[in-house]
């Protein structure tokens, strides 16, 4: 199977800071790839660089054989990328229904996906009329993931889906992500190594703005030394 997304040696600056200094990631079609690394290593910036929110100054981003770096963010997203940002970024003043509706790229996207989305997150159906600000953290996270599912996306960029959630909700989130990876490819940032190792088939470790190691998750789980060296966890 070919790679849906290839990030080739990108360098990204935020202001004058050289945040990414050569990140290379390959995401095979239909797989879940996890970006691992310490806080501030540049995992979130990598996701944002793919979307052009922090456009890379050098390097290439290839989606489905097409170079997408240098395009405008909305253009890149409209090619079929869904984004679930850190801290969810749901729209507080919009109702749950509006939060989903706004993600439509074609008229009726939401109606077509409604069943699938409420199948994954039955809670949302009950909350459909509430404003986003009234949701709990877990519900907001579900909404953020659901929002990325409304249009037909080939690739989902998910940033820290388990952050700040109760274990029960994390469990539910993992089931959902596993399920939806059947239909689209996922590039995941996850601090919680246990969650990441259960979800992802492949991993890429990012250290101080560089991708330093990548491979199969199954191999990493037994490689205590690498885990200790780069992730600081046992």
């Amino acid at each position: 199977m070919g790679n849906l997304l290839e990030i080739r040696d990108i360098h990204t600056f935020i202001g004058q800071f050289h945040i990414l200094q050569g990140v290379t990631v390959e995401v095979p079609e239909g797989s879940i790839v996890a970006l691992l690394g310490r806080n501030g290593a540049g995992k979130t910036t990598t996701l944002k660089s793919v979307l052009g929110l922090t456009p890379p100054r050098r390097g290439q981003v290839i989606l489905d054989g097409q170079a997408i770096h240098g395009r405008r963010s909305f253009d890149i997203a409209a090619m079929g990328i869904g984004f679930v940002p850190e801290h969810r970024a749901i729209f507080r003043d919009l109702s749950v229904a509006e939060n989903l509706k706004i993600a439509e790229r074609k008229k009726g996207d939401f109606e077509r996906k409604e069943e699938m989305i409420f199948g994954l997150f039955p809670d949302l159906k009950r909350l459909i009329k509430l404003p986003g600000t009234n949701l709990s953290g877990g519900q907001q996270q579900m909404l953020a993931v659901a929002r990325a599912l409304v249009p037909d996306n080939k690739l989902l960029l998910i940033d820290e889906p388990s952050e700040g959630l109760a274990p029960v909700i994390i469990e539910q989130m993992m089931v959902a992500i596993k399920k939806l990876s059947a239909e689209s490819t996922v590039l995941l940032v996850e601090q919680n190594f246990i969650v990441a190792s259960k979800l992802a088939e492949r991993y890429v470790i990012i250290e101080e703005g560089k991708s330093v190691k990548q491979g199969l998750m199954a191999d990493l789980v037994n490689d205590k030394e690498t885990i200790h060296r780069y992730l600081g966890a046992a």
Partner: protein
Amino acid sequence: MGELLKKNRTRLITLAVLAFMFVTAVQGMETKDWVITVLRGLSVGAITFLVASGFSLILGLMNILNLAHGEMFMIGAYVGWTVYVRPDTFVDVIAPLAFLAVGLILMPLWRVLLGRLNVSARVAQVWPWVGLVVALLILAATFVKFPIAIWDAEVYAESPTTYALGMSQGLATVPEAAVFEGISPFVAIVGTLLGSIVLAVSLVGLSQREQTAVSGTYINKGPIIGAALVLLVGLAAFWGNNALTEYLYNMNTTGRFFLSMLVAVLGGGVLGMLIETTLVRPLYERHTYQILLTLGLSFIGIEVVRAIWGRPEFTMPKPDLFAAGGGDCPATSIGGWLANNCSTILLFDGRVRTYNEIFIIFVGVVVLVAIWLLLQQTRIGMIIRAGVQDSEMVEALGINVQRVFTFVFSLGVGLAALGGVLAAPSIGLSPAMGTRLLLLALIALAIGGLTSFPGAAAGAVLVGLMQQFIIKYGQIGINIPFMAEPFKPSPPLVPASTVLLMVIILLVLPNGLFGRSE
């Protein structure tokens, strides 16, 4: 429900206290005075709201403090005045502007065509500038030669003041039509079209110098149809110039007034679009520069208006529908007013002016409802509300936020321009009218909550009421216990009172009535 009450306790108490204050004011004066004062307050509030709502939408969505917003209000008033009092000038201006716009509307087409050309980098650095110079030379030889019948602000007999006076006395005469001198009309039209195309192509070249990726490689039908329509409008205005001028002069003034409102709104919208796409867009991330830019624009706006319309203040006569007196006036019912075009109407035995206190409020309410519907019921409104909170995330959903920015900026400027033309028959025109009103709008926004739409409405109404009640008390005095004479607030206390209201409300609610803490 109970939780909702608890959360908003301070806000509700504040609103109740304010409402109580304005209602109990009726004790100190006659009922009819109170009614008139409230209506005047609402009228000032409606005008303030038109400026404040656009300002707050722009601030909320784009994080831009548009300090030139007051000048947009002023320019709306002057443009509306011109259409209303000197329709011949308005008709003369349509054709050249339409021809100039044709090339610019076709910009997306030039972008695609240029993207297909392969020009070496060095040539690409130079040719746009050459093109720009050529375009300006062509336009200087043709565009500016279009004949425009205009007033002369320096000569009293031909100044805007005189024309306004003449019209209000029913003495409006059609000034002599201007004719082409030293250039054939055909050359002027073709030259302007050519100059406009060269200008647009050069501007596109200028913007593409550093862009690596080409966005949009297919040709859209929209701009071509638009350009064709504008070209037709220009040609029609050129050939039908005299007929159109005559038609507008013979139209009844109410119809012409509505036309001038429409032109002011559309003109404001186009002006806003131009400002946003050319000046504001390069400065999205640089807030200090934005403030300098909009402050500079406001000075430029004032000076341009002074140069064209002159320094002195002048009036805009009220349209016929609101102008008649005597006979069956003041009217006792809405029907009576509409039948006799009364300038006043009796309400609780008080004379209420139909234009100032009824029509302005009516338009304000219509706009309030229209924008509310736009924000709540349409997709673009939903995108605006979402963008106010997090425009980056909206962009990440695949929505072109920049286009929404342009729309909102143009909507805001259009609303301010509508406010200007609406206020002009009531307060007259002066180059300083915008600055004064922006100050009032800013106070209203601080009271209501800077980026809240209901806040803009509530703040504007409160400011208007406060101002008008203090003015009224300045005439009749407030009885204060243990004071021998009633206290009469002096005129300087009028603006001070609105600031005082703002200070008190901000002490109780630091984010304003409807604002949310960030």
